């Protein structure tokens, strides 16, 4: 199968993720969409790695996973805190800071 198709898929996933970030209200979902974007990146990395025939891309993918995991830890912690104080995970509710 032509690896370019994986790139298309990666781009599609990335776009879906980005659209999710822009559209969804729930902070958790928004965050998951970011994760989706990261995974789209991973897919692109491994595809390119295969196209170029070197391992850099695959290794980067591992790094990305670790970073994503770290991000989850921090992100969930922050979202949880704000959920506990506001009883809502909607990003639109958190709009005291403006103008």
């Amino acid at each position, binding site marked *: 199968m032509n690896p370019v198709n994986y790139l298309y898929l990666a781009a599609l996933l990335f776009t879906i993720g980005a659209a999710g970030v822009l559209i969804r209200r729930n902070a958790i979902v928004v965050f998951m969409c970011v994760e989706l974007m990261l995974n789209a990146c991973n897919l692109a990395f491994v595809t390119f790695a295969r196209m170029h025939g070197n391992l850099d891309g695959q290794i980067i993918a591992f790094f990305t996973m670790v970073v994503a995991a770290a991000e989850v830890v921090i992100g969930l912690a*922050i979202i949880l805190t704000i959920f506990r104080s506001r009883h809502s995970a909607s990003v639109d509710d958190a709009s005291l800071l403006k103008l």
Partner: protein
Amino acid sequence: MSPAAPGAVVHSLWTTAAAEAPVKIPGPVIEYAELAPVLIVLGTALVGVLVEAFLPRRLRHPAQALLAAVGLAAAFAAVVALAAGGYANGKAHPAAMGAVAVDGPALFLQGTILLTGLVAVLTFAERRLDPAAHGRPVDSFAAQAAAVPGGEAEQKAVRAGLTTTEVFPVLLFAVGGMLVFPAANDLLTLFVALEVFSLPLYVLCALARRQRLLSQEAAVKYFLLGAFSSAILLFGVALLYGYAGTVTYSGIADVVGGTPRTVTPALAATMGNDALLLIGGAMVLMGLLFKVGAVPFHMWTPDVYQGAPTPVTGFMAAATKVAAFGALLRLLYVVLPGLRWDWRPVMWGVAIVTMLIGAVVAVTQTDVKRLLAYSSIAHAGFILAGVVATSPAGVSSVLFYLGAYSFVTLGAFAVVTLVRDAGGEATQLSKWAGLGRRSPLVAAVFAVFLLAFAGIPLTSGFAGKFAVFKAAAQGGAAPLVIVGVLASAIAAFFYIRVIVLMFFNEPRPEGPTVAVPSPLTSTAIAVGLVVTVVLGVAPQYFLDLAGHAGVFVR
């Protein structure tokens, strides 16, 4: 592209591996001495975590503060030693298998970041501004971040005198990431460093003692938008990797320049696809512009600056900008110089809208922290004007500007922490009316910082602005200079407005008072003031320093 070709390569790879004895992967060569600043900071941070775990609570605060200060000072000493050892120019080279550059700009920026970090530690450790709660001194950070604001758990924590001493190791981790960020010599390191310094900052933002809802909101916004931007950056990295087949700066630069070391058929195919390069480059650029707070990626800045605890804001405003501009410079000057004609016009546009929008929107701000946030956006625009100069003079001017700007910023935010009323810091501008009559000294110091922001001669702000605009003009960006000058004029308006408020308006009876700080914050403000004046009156030594540090290693 032939569909079979990559498969064949992979196959041969597999077969080679199967047929021959396992290849010995050579152990990585790590120049520990040259990475010492980073290692010291991160090591100290780890020690800090252990301290948090094992030291009794009452000792933790002084111990952590001392530890962080010592660690940062040691790291700074290491930077100085490296620079003295010639790593800034003669011996500059990429270290750690090409992942991290040790060169002039990197050392200069690391030194700046470490100093800002050191000053930030001073403001972090300040415990005299708020009245003691239940007999225990309190600092700017939440007693227990996990407790619900206003809830029973929080009250208990306050009664118990808990403090979030973790901020010191977290700060150190952020500093560690920032040290690597401008030195990152491949895109992977860039991404990892970005995350390493961003994640601690997200956490720090959420830790304010007062107005915790705002603080948490700031953290959420910062986190979500930051994650979003790093995802876009990462995709850009992926595209660049796809284009060049490598993520090292020098490798990509070679491919962009049309002289890769080896040309595989796959590389030959992707090399021809400039769209990958341009889109990828733009997305990486976006990630960095987000961090420097350039328009239209700036919108997090005012919200986060306002919501975060003020010491954190000061640190963030100063150090993040330094690190991010360092990385931006390296990316544009090392990776994409071959694309100069593509990115320069775009960066012109970004610089212009950043200067203008930052200055214009600041005019109607009513909160001093937000005002400084928009001011920082305008200043990002000014620095971008130096970035697009594409000359060694441009690099050194940006380095100088960053050094000058970060100390003004730290000083200004440190002053903000002093002006307080019953609800904590009084950041509403209207409450600052007549401050100059009640506390002439504090108001005068803040006025000096504002004048430096406005770029009035004999302050560091003027020297920096002059350097940047001079480089831009010499680089043929005269229109940018004109716009910059106009934006400066608009910017001057709102700085002056604050001065008017402080000195020429009658104080309100219920107005805020100026808390008498401990020597910690006083030192921080004094350092800011001294640097501001010295860099304004006798900038030559520092210009030399920045000038010698103006060449990137590849």
